[in-house]
């Protein structure tokens, strides 16, 4: 039996002369690029070019107004890491902030999501109540809590009037409590969001797994450890990565409540960046801080990519 064989084009010229190859190339390569081109161009224009400019500006003494920017090499980075004490302090505060947000809201959200997943009726009411703080504007949340934490008219003052002393202190006005108080406020707004994500993930776990666990004699804790946690692990780990990155971007709650004070006790890199760029006219130096934040974010992403490559279910 004769077999018809068609020679596959190998050289560029052969490929270009081959109708099938041309169609395939158009369909698989050209058309997808045409579809993605507008978005890609927009991304290059609004993200890539400013990012490259930002990196360049971080190596200049640009003041933030006008075009005068002298190239200073890595001077800004040297100053950041070896001379600027406030940067070191701000970085330390960012790390404290990250540790807080990688523990407290996760524990609260996991606990609440587990409890809510058991509720058959009225669960939506609880979910809504716990989620509402997340949709409040930061300025509203801060205003509410600044009043609640006020030692003269807040909760502490009310407790003192009832004879319960010791809580009427200036939480935002003391260096030792300011940062944690703001973290508490931010967490009040944030953890409901985490809870909703975990709850959604829990609801996607097949009920048969729980039934099987029960048959095997598992108690609630065993179910949580061996069924729930493995079932929501991708979501938890992804949020771990995001929260770690967001921790270096913390700005609004801090700036609206203490502006980094008192005495720099709640200063973080983003607030320091803002002050340098807009108050001290050191936009180049501020850009260097921005690049450092990006490097931290990149480092965190790299850890997760590495773990995924090693087979972690992230």
């Amino acid at each position, binding site marked *: 039996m004769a077999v018809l064989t068609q020679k596959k084009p190998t050289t560029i010229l052969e490929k270009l002369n081959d109708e099938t190859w041309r169609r395939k190339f158009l369909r698989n390569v050209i058309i997808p690029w045409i579809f993605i081109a507008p978005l890609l161009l927009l991304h290059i224009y609004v993200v890539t070019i400013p990012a490259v400019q930002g990196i360049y500006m971080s190596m200049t003494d640009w*003041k*933030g*107004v*006008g*075009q*005068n920017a002298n190239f200073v090499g890595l001077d800004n980075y040297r100053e950041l890491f070896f001379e600027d004490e406030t940067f070191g302090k701000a970085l330390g505060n960012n790390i404290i902030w990250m540790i807080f947000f990688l523990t407290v809201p996760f524990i609260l959200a996991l606990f609440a999501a587990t409890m809510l997943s058991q509720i058959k009726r009225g669960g939506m009411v609880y979910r809504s109540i716990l989620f509402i703080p997340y949709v409040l504007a930061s300025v509203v949340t801060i205003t509410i809590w*600044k009043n609640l934490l*006020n*030692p*003269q008219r807040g909760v502490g003052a009310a407790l003192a009037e009832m004879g319960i002393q010791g809580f009427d*202190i*200036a939480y*935002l*006005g*003391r*260096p030792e409590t*300011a940062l944690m108080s703001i973290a508490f406020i931010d967490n009040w707004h944030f953890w409901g969001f985490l809870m909703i994500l975990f709850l959604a993930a829990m609801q996607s776990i097949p009920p048969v797994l729980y039934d099987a666990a029960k048959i095997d004699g598992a108690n609630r804790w065993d179910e949580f450890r061996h069924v729930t946690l493995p079932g929501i692990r991708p979501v938890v780990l992804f949020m771990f990565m995001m929260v770690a990155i967001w921790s270096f971007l913390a700005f609004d709650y801090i700036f609206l409540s*203490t*502006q*980094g*004070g*008192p*005495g*720099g*006790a709640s200063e973080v890199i983003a607030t320091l960046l803002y*002050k340098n760029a*807009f*108050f*001290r*006219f*050191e936009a180049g130096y501020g850009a260097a801080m921005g690049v450092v934040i990006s490097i931290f974010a990149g480092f965190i992403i790299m850890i997760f990519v590495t773990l995924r490559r090693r087979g972690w279910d992230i």
Partner: protein
Amino acid sequence: MKTLKILFAIAVLILALAPVGAQDVTTVSMWFSEGSTLDCWGPIMLEFNEIDPSVQLEIVPQADTWNVTRTAVAGGGGPDIVRTPGPSFVYEMAQAGLILPMDAFADEMGWGDFFFDWALDLGLVDGQLYSLSDELETLLLYYNTDVFEMNGWTPPDTMDELNALSEEVAAAGYTVFSHGNASWRPSNEWFVGEYMTQIAGPHNVYKALTGQIPWTDESMVNAIEILDAHMQAGWYGGGIDLYFTNDGATRRAMFADGTAAMNIEGSWAIRSLGEYFGESGQDWDWVPVPSHDGTDYFTIGMGNTSSINANSPHPEVAAQFLTWYFSPATQGKMLTACRKGPAPVSISEEVMGELDPRIARVYSELSEASANDRYGYTTWTFWPPKSDVYIYEEVERVWTGEITVMDYLEGLDEVFAEELAAGDIPPIPTR
């Protein structure tokens, strides 16, 4: 059908005339913060449009005006008239060529005739006039007259008297100064600048600003140590932690209701004191902030400045507006109607006569002090930007016990020396 024809004719007429009208009108723009200030100032500023219909001012309300303006001007846009928060900001914009030198307009329109001599100098950058200063400010010692009368106290004249009185006030259970920086953290700098002027003396501050003596000079150390002692005694806001907690409304309320006896604040506070004291039914007055030797020194500050955008297509019209806006007549009107701090121009006796005597006295005494070498310096007007930020940020570390006064002043000296060497110091009128 007839009606249709008439309507058509009117429409054609309107269309034919509209471009002619539009071509004849030149509009200059000014961006202004939204809020109550604009509500009062705006209608008065727009009276400019009635003078000549072919020259119009457009006020564009903006949130976070300064940052929006700076970004827009740097990008080649922005309003024709550029307002900045003070002379040190003008310096940066002038260096970058974003605003125009206005010397020719000043000569042509006679700005020197109504501005105080030293005031025009504040707008100089490398010998050229780039801005006109607005909202003359000074710090005052306000006191609650009801509280003072009830306790038989009299306002102090010297720093020693202030110390003695403050101890008495605190012992009587009052908060000495109604203060807090929760709404505006840079308010720390009011006291640093004021104590330097009143205790170290304005001549020493001048020497330090011109690089003749360091900020670690004994007189400066003494001034900041006294400020720190007042803070540590809990005189400001009722305690350091409360100082960091009290917001603007709280501190005004505690002064007006007699919880606090005094308040060191800028002349801008007069705008809102009436509202708070009106509610409490008590009353207030002011004296100059006491100095070490009893001389009445007044620190001078400027709330903002006006310049002309280098990209403005109509700089001459912008200058025309500035001439009208800074004229003593317009400034007087805004002072009486809105209690706006006037630009440093000579306001007529007649206008001053219409004011609350307490307010009139602020500007007459300030004017007298500036003419008699009794003026001092506010940090936001005369210090360069990095030093200014250092002053209000780092002083908190002194108050929280993290660093010593000497550490603080050594740091200031270092930052200031850098800016002095770079020529970034705003104009300091020679004395």
